[in-house]
């Protein structure tokens, strides 16, 4: 398939996944912000979010003081914020538009209809209906586009690049959520009740609350949360699962330039498959996640170089 086509498919999936994860992160912060807390704690909650997204400097420059409703508007609507949900959904649709001949009619219509809906949405309408409902809607549209992809697309190369985009983005996003929340939770919070609510909010943000109960049948403990979200291969948003999917799909699209990229993906996959949570905690979760995000970034660049950036004239 055309390199440019693969590139658009890859980014279409990444932007849709990013929109979903941004909605998830905003949703959890919004819920936490509704709990009784000091103004400093409230501010920390939103600052942490901006840091996850590496957007704190840009936010302060354009919006000034960190305050809940302003952060929400910035993260949902701001045209200058490339990661705002609106911009992600637009970018997903633009990428889909550029390759609509490759997509099934159902998938294209799903992407297009999502954008048409969000294009007409204003902060006033959204606040009137409730932001919670909006986050649910974004998640639902992302579920829908993924379901339509799986349910209608031929499982050929195009499908593989869509899957690569989805799981590479999700791996990065889960790692970010975990990194910031884990630091805030483990270092700053001793009070048990609040602790419980915050951990459960984190689990909710990745749809893992019921999963946790099912897997551990136990009280919520930070170590087990880390184990579930990093190492559990059955958990669809865990790092282990995401990297596994990246590795599998990469092997399916292999070309004569991609051996090293596949090896690195395999190495990362193996380290998660055979990893142990006590070792990770002992060596420090933050350095581990930091390294992990670097490796995901590296894989993204390598996939670009091997497959997506047009091969230069070889003649």
């Amino acid at each position, binding site marked *: 398939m055309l390199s440019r086509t693969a590139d658009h498919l890859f980014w279409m999936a990444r932007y849709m996944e990013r929109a979903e994860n941004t909605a998830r992160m905003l949703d959890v912060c919004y819920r936490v912000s509704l709990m009784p807390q000091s103004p400093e704690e409230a501010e920390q909650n939103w600052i942490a979010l901006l840091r996850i997204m590496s957007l704190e400097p840009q936010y302060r420059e354009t919006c000034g003081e960190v305050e809940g409703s302003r952060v929400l508007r910035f993260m949902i609507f701001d045209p200058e914020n490339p990661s705002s949900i609106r911009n992600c959904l637009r970018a997903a649709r633009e990428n889909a538009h550029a390759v609509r001949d490759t997509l099934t009619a159902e998938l294209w219509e799903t992407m297009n209809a999502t954008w048409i809906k969000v294009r007409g949405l204003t902060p006033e309408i959204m606040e009137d209906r409730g932001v919670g409902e909006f986050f649910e809607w974004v998640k639902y549209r992302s579920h829908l586009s993924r379901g339509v992809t799986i349910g209608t697309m031929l499982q050929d190369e195009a499908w593989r690049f869509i899957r690569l985009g989805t799981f590479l983005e999700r791996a990065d996003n889960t790692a970010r959520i975990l990194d910031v929340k884990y630091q805030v939770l483990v270092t700053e919070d001793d009070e048990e009740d609040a602790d419980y609510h915050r951990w459960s909010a984190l689990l909710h943000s990745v749809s893992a609350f019921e999963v946790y109960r099912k897997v551990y049948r136990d009280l919520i403990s930070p170590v087990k949360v880390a184990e579930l979200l990093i190492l559990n291969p059955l958990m669809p948003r865990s790092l282990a699962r995401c990297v596994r999917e990246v590795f599998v799909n990469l092997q399916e699209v292999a070309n004569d330039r991609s051996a090293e990229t596949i090896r690195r993906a395999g190495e990362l996959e193996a380290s998660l498959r055979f990893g142990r949570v006590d070792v990770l905690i002992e060596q420090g979760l933050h350095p581990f996640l930091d390294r992990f995000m670097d490796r995901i970034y590296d894989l993204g660049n390598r996939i670009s170089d091997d497959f997506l950036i047009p091969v230069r*004239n070889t003649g």
Partner: protein
Amino acid sequence: MPITEFYDEMTGDGGLVRPHYADVSKWLDKMSAERLDRKRAEAHALFHRSGITFAVYGEDAGTERLIPFDIIPRIITASEWSTLKRGLKQRVMALNAFIRDIYHERAILKDGLIPPEDVLGNAQYRQEMIGVAVAHDVYAHIAGVDIVRAGEGEFYVLEDNLRVPSGVSYMLEDRRMMMRLFPELFASNRVAPVDHYPNLLLDTMRSVAPAGQDDPTVVVMTPGAYNSAYFEHAFLAQQMGVELVEGQDLFVADDQVYMRTTQGPRRIDVIYRRIDDDFLDPTVFRKDSMLGVPGLLQAYRAGKVTLANAVGGGLADDKSIYPYVPEMIRFYLGEEPILKNVPTYRCRDEGDLSYVLANLDDLVVKEVHGAGGYGMLVGPTSSKAQIEAFRERLVASPGKYIAQPTLSLSACPTFVESGVAPRHIDLRPFVLSGKEVHMVPGGLTRVALTEGSLVVNSSQGGGTKDTWVLEA
């Protein structure tokens, strides 16, 4: 002077419904305005959701609009179509022979049938094509010939579109929509199918591959997602199952054209290009073209790749060449033209110009190189001020214009704000020329939605209708 006399497609003398419209007329009578309205809304929602849109130049960039779809079909009888089909094939064959002749022997110029300066001074004439052989001597592989009915219903050719004619996707989508909204109509009328058009197009493209390519790779080339006809480019690529490429996806090495794929370079043999000559190759044509492929023309001239339509074919669809087409048919085919031309005044001719200036109120004046209904004057429906403004432009550069009598275009019942009322229509059938000449029955019917308007172009607010050819 509004046009009051016109051929009504559905109703004949004395208010009698023509036989081929009998069923649709009964169906219309039974249909409530509410149901019509609901069906129209349903059609628009479906078109919108699937992004069947076009971009309008000159408005805020990137906006996309729907082409209004009218749910009352336009019907052509089997015998009318049979004449049209023969006439169209004849015309396109003569036009292809003409283009070939101009780039080779120039017999028609030597015989003095067309003044050489009209051809060789044409902006669409490409010196680069002199002596270049093309597969099966076909230049206009895809031709969209605009047909109107006037007077008592006789057909006229209004213009030949031989460069990158568009609209076929609407023909196909309108049919799909119609079958979805009103399946009962297709049970009671024998409507000739059109949905094999992409197959015919692919066959045509494969038949003109460079010699020796038994299993040629065909692609559709688009200027990109922001082009007004992008929907159609993507649609045709998808329906044919071929890649939709942009210039940046292609490169030329040793006169072969390749596309950049995830599995490395892959050779391509036939390019159905939806991009004008000017932008094809920055090393030959416009240097600033970001849309083209350096070296493409060299590969083309070397016979390593087929471009459809051929480079330089535009000289034959120029409005200043149009008056000579009947002569071409006699000259190359030794036949009498089956379809009529509209009488045309060439403003570069002094006698014609003075006639045109004296009769602007009654004439339609068009730019020789114009398309899409831009830059034209429809005398009878224009204000004094518009006519005077146009007169100045005409006097300043008469060579840019031709004029024709204002035809009272036929009208077809159309669902508009005030209910069902006649609106003027035209017809664009598509003629595919490769090893053989193929057509699907009918074409795209465009309708001027404003009362009395004769401008059917989608860029000027025109709509479309499903076009039926009834089987005998």
